[in-house]
């Protein structure tokens, strides 16, 4: 029952996360229309859009709709400010409105700017001169302006509104946020602006590789780490002590350093023939028909990344295991058992081991959601087409159409995985229920 209420508590967090990501998306420096136009003009040339073309694309992308279900704006903003296109013009209008707090003046200024479209430099310099100070001196440039503007400017410079007063407006379901979330979660998701694939299938393909890689390394690292931790604690010989030092050192080497070193020494002939054990990382091929085909073609490429991740994980798991065990063995119940005559191996087997493994399970429950994201650096170094590589390449190419929905999906999945991990942990350790 408690877990169900926890699931309910996830919903506001999910909504908040989606709102935050949406507003980040809205403030990206690129114009979405131009990006959209770049994809669908097949000749690959950068062309200047006519205003009609621009508007038709903008309507298709719902850019003429308000951002959110409601808006709170100063009352000197017009109701239809979200319909102004192109977006550059909307931004300029908003900036001017913030400065002059008078819609009539700003409207005229903007129209004036487009009226002088043939002589654009002159028009811009006029508007800029106005924007610097509203009661401009009557320079030559200003004298050539239309009379209506002159009168307006002189009028308004004397009675400006000082305080913006908030006004609330309800927009209903026809808004960009609603549309965006609906497309992200629907069966017709947004398309990548680079490869023309839809985001959902891109994420799904990437996720399979990531899960394969991270599950392989988790399944190898956890048992090995726990066993090594036990050995570090139990064994008195020097070899194990040196091993512990070695694994500590391996953990301290940054993962990208270790990965690059492995690539450098084990995939080339440069350091002697015998070190060239693995194929060069850029020769992977994904031309197989199915996922299983691709894996069997590329299995030899996964060895190095798994080694890299496993050595990294083992360091921390074995350290936790040995320190937990030594902490556990100082507790009173162990002393009681010893004084009753229970053998040391029995104490460790039946009591101490079970109790000291719980922190490791906590680590695991954190590692599984984190594995959805994959090890970004590892995927980039070893050229594996997982989630990390997807996010990396979409950031590189400024492919916002992929990046934002992918981040949204990943954060939803992560939250749900955390919830599942909590439930698993509670069923294993009944102390956590309290």
């Amino acid at each position, binding site marked *: 029952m408690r877990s169900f209420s926890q699931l309910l508590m996830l919903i506001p*967090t999910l909504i*908040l*996360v989606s709102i*935050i990501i949406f507003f*980040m998306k809205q*403030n*990206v*420096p690129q114009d979405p229309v131009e990006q959209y136009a770049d994809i669908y003009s097949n000749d690959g040339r950068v062309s200047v859009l006519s205003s009609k073309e621009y508007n038709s694309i903008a309507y298709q992308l719902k850019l003429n709709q308000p951002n959110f279900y409601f808006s*709170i*704006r*100063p009352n000197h903003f017009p109701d239809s400010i979200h319909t102004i296109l192109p977006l550059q013009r909307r931004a300029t209008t908003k900036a001017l409105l*913030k*400065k002059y707090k008078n819609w009539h003046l700003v409207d005229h200024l903007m129209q004036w700017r487009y009226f002088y479209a043939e002589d654009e430099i002159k028009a811009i310099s006029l508007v800029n001169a106005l924007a610097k100070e509203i009661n401009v001196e009557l320079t030559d440039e200003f004298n050539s302006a239309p009379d209506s503007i002159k009168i307006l400017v002189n009028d308004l410079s004397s009675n400006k509104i000082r*305080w*913006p007063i*908030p006004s609330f407006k309800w927009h209903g379901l026809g808004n960009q946020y609603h549309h965006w979330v609906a497309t992200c979660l629907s069966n017709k998701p947004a398309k990548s602006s680079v490869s023309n694939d839809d985001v959902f299938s891109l994420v799904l393909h990437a996720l399979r590789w990531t899960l394969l890689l991270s599950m392989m390394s988790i399944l190898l690292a956890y048992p090995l780490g726990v066993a090594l931790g036990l050995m570090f604690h139990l064994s008195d010989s020097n070899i194990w002590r040196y091993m512990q030092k070695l694994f500590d*050192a391996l953990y*301290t*080497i*940054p*993962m*990208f*350093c270790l990965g*690059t*070193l492995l*690539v*450098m020494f084990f*995939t*080339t002939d*440069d*350091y002697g023939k015998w070190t060239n054990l693995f194929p060069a990382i850029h020769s992977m091929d994904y031309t197989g028909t199915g996922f299983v085909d691709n894996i069997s073609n590329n299995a030899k490429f996964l060895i190095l990344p798994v080694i890299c991740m496993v050595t990294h994980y083992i360091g921390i798991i074995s350290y936790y295991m040995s320190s937990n065990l030594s902490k556990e063995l100082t507790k009173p119940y162990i002393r009681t058992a010893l004084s009753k005559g229970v053998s040391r191996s029995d104490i460790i087997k039946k009591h101490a081991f079970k109790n000291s493994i719980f922190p490791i399970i906590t680590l695991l429950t954190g590692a599984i*959601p*984190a594995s*959805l*994201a994959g090890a*970004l*650096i590892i995927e*980039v*170094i070893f050229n594996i087409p997982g989630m*990390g590589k997807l*996010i*990396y390449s979409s*950031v*590189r190419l*400024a492919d916002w159409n992929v*990046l934002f929905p992918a*981040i949204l999906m*990943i*954060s*939803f999945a*992560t*939250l749900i995985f*955390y919830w599942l991990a909590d439930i698993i942990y509670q069923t294993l350790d009944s102390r956590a229920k309290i």
Partner: protein
Amino acid sequence: MIDKLKHKSWSFWVLIIYVTIALLGAVFNVDYWAQQTDISNIYLAPFQSFSHILGTDSLGRNTLIGILNGVRISFLVGLFSALGSLFVAAGLGYASGYLGDKLVRISWVNTVTILILTFLLFFLWVYGNQPIFYLFLYVSTIFILHKYIEPRLGNLKSIPIPFDSIVMKIIGIFKSVPGMFLTIFLFSLFSQRSMVNLIIVIVIFRWPQLTRIIRSEIMKLKNQPFIVSAEASGLNQFTLLKNHLLPNIIEPVLVSLIYGFIASILIEASLTFIGLGLPLETVSWGSMLSGSRLYLPAWWLILFPGLIMFLIITALKDISNKKLFTFEY
């Protein structure tokens, strides 16, 4: 404190040298010298010539000076992001750990007014022209309200402020996006890839962890008898914080700050390594390592920066593990 460190450990001396090189690098403008190219000597192996003792990279830039510049960059990034996240985390950790959900109660009049005023401040900040003036107005209005108006209104029903729930909810939101994604994603939204923006992103990424540590440390202390009796004897908040809470949480907080320092160094290096961090012309550890990927025989481009990183991280971990900080009052 310094005395103890000096006698005990090698890591202290490593850190002293590290900080000195970083500061000297900033003074002598090592950034400029690291960018000097020498086209006649590209990919020169180490120990071949005296002027390029640790070799050169694809543009003939000196590896040794590059490493020194990397020291400077890592020190700046690590220090300022650790301090920044401490600044954020100290306040929020105190609020959620000590004040909790029920301790602070203010009257409903005050609550409603503060909510309205906060909304107005935000609104005017976005749409108005003089943000600093509005901030001043906001603070002074709340002060006047609290000091003069509210006492005259008589006994009002009061509402507890759930600091703890609010902070934990925000941390939950940050936890939902995996760490490396969050940094790359946020950094891609900045138009300029400067060091200051990188530090801001790292602070945004790091503060939740530090806040949780401070919160749990304070919560452990909160019900201890000496704190309870200090509260009961009417000690004021500031003295309680200064004399009792702070000395008891300083050690774990310092340890986690050092770990934050290490994490920031690693984030900076790995972001620059994959080409999404500092700009391309800056020479740092990450950019040198990524240079080695273009030409695999150049082992010196990875070994020397890697060794220096390894040495510094080991030294920092050594300092934090040995619990060399002892504060005696």
